[in-house]
Each structure stands twice: as structure tokens, then as C-alpha cells.
């Protein structure tokens, strides 16, 4: 292959977002099941991401205290964990199965 046939992908053009999945009352508070949130390459603390969502969606802020969060399919303990581009964050209100 001759050199220079393809331009390399460069960071500024890449989507750098966290995929936020919302369930039950959290989905209703936001009005949609999924959000994308841009974060810096090194990520942000989960607390900071949630505070931003809470400012944007006051109805969600009222629920967040009782929610659990799962990052890439695993529940997190505490909200200091960093959320990085490409991560999937699920917001779970209290369960009511059965």
C-alpha cells in the first residue's frame, strides 16, 4: 500500500462520550432511556458526572440519592470511581421486581 493513502483518525474528531442508560423512574425523570455525555480523555469522577446530570434534569437529581450505578455491567461502590470515554453507566432506581 502506498504511503499517505489514508489519513489517520485524530483525537479531536473522535466521539468521547459516556453512554448513560436510564431505567424506570430515572428514565421518566429524564424523558428518554439513553444519554450521551462528553467527558475528557482521562474521564471524570462519577460524582461529577451525576451532579452535571442532576443540574440538567432536576427531577433526576431528586432520585439520585436512592439510585445505584453500574459501570460497564458492575455496580460501583462510592462515587469517586472515574468514568471514562466509551464507558456505559447504568442508573438503577430501587428495584421492584417479583
Amino acid at each position, binding site marked *: 500500500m502506498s504511503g499517505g493513502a489514508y489519513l489517520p483518525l485524530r483525537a479531536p474528531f473522535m466521539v468521547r462520550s459516556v453512554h448513560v442508560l436510564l431505567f*424506570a423512574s430515572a428514565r421518566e425523570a429524564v424523558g428518554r432511556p439513553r444519554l450521551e455525555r462528553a467527558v475528557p480523555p482521562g474521564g471524570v469522577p462519577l460524582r461529577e458526572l451525576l451532579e452535571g446530570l442532576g443540574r440538567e434534569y432536576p427531577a433526576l437529581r431528586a432520585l439520585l440519592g436512592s439510585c445505584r450505578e453500574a459501570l460497564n*455491567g458492575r455496580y460501583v461502590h462510592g462515587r469517586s470511581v472515574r468514568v471514562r470515554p466509551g464507558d456505559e453507566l447504568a442508573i*438503577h432506581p430501587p*428495584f421492584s*421486581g*417479583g
Partner: protein
Amino acid sequence: MSVRLSRRPLSVPAAYRELGQGPAGGIAIFLGRVRPDRVGARIVRALDYEADEGIALAAMHRIERGARARWGADEIVLHHRIGRLRVGEISVIAGAAAAHRADAFRSARWIIERLKSDVPIWKQNVLSGDPR
């Protein structure tokens, strides 16, 4: 072993067949059904169930393993339905087979309680008079 999230009606005979495939002497099956609860002047006519399916199934498998380790259950059935269920329909089957009745009852009781506390499933009332 039988753990399932299903959008179709749950089958008690199928659950019994799975529980009865071994030599267990005791089988206990709990069925959860949709109740016509009164909410103010209105009545629940259906429930909409949803789950975070990947995490829910992983949690249900952990419960299944826990029932075997904790209570010595031989077979476990933990089936939950999602989607819209009308009053009277079965939302959950939690069953256990064990050598004797005490462990079968304990296992079935334990897995339904754990499902309620540990598995990301949610329900929402659909009331009489709701447009949807």
C-alpha cells in the same frame, strides 16, 4: 439450572419439569401474580415490568448458585417475565428441588427474597382509566 427473563407467559408445567428431572424428594414452587390493587379511586389493571437484562441475568445466576451452596438445593428455577402483564398473570416463578421439604421451602423462599432485593427489575402500575 434454569434462570430466565421472558417476554412471553411463564409456564408452571415447564418449571415443574425442570425441577423434577433429578431425584429430589421435595419441590417447592412460589408463583408471583399481578394483583388488582386499589390506588385511590382507581384499580391496577396491569403492570409494566422492565429489567437491565445483562445485570439482572448475572444477579439471577448468582442467586441460583447461592441457593445451591447455602441450602443444598438440587435444582433451581428462577423465571421472571418482563413487558406488560395483566391482573392474574404470573410475573415470577421461584422454585427449588431438594432432598427434603425443609430445604426446598427454604431455598424457594430465599431465592424470591433475593430476587426482590438484588435484581434490577422494575414494575410500574397501569391503572384503570389510563390511556395506554
